[in-house]
């Protein structure tokens, strides 16, 4: 019996899309977090990624959990991929941005509005001041 027989295509798409949103947002939250990664952050993340909502939404022995996991992967690493592509095609950034956040200085005709949220670090700040992705 196919494992997806208990779930309709629409349900599978919905579970996958839900996972994609969660994955994308987890990466986003991590990128804009205010401080170092703490254990509490991991607990929060596991609550979001695999918490009660997943158990409550997806009946056992269906393919919905699998569709959710596929979407989670797509959303999370999709964000990372988009970041890589944007850095690659931008003339203001290079791969070194992932190391320490370096970028070109603004031209005279450019400015960054004060209310724009800034990433505290490209990916994370390691001990000793070295930033590593």
């Amino acid at each position, binding site marked *: 019996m196919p494992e997806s027989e208990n779930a309709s295509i629409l349900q599978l798409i919905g579970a996958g899309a839900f996972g994609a949103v969660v994955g994308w947002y987890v990466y986003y939250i991590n990128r804009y977090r205010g401080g170092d990664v703490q254990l509490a952050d991991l607990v929060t993340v596991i609550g979001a*990624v695999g918490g009660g909502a997943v158990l409550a939404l997806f009946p056992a022995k269906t393919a919905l*959990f699998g569709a959710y996991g596929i979407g989670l992967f797509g959303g999370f*690493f999709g964000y990372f991929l988009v970041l890589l592509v944007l850095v690659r095609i931008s003339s203001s950034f290079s791969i070194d941005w992932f190391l320490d956040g370096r970028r070109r200085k603004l031209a005279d005709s450019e400015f960054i509005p004060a209310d724009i949220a800034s990433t505290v670090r490209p990916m994370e700040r390691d001990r000793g001041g070295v930033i590593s992705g």
Partner: protein
Amino acid sequence: MIASLGSVGAGLVWGWLLGLRAPWGRRQAHSAAAAFAASLLFALEALALVDWRAAGILLASLAAGLLARLGWRGALKARYGAERSEGGLRA
């Protein structure tokens, strides 16, 4: 098939997240134990929702995601170290 792929995806994401700060802070043993417990809970969830094979795949993928993350970080560190040995950062 979908369940296996989903377990791989979820495991890779969780492993990558765990690798963000490995070793996990000052109280490393305590944090590592908590991370292990959280991972075990995630695997138990896969066991409850799918089967034991999905749980095993999730744990294996978790390890792969963790290694991928550490590899990515190691590669960037190596690049950073190489630049420093060449006489400083290229601004």
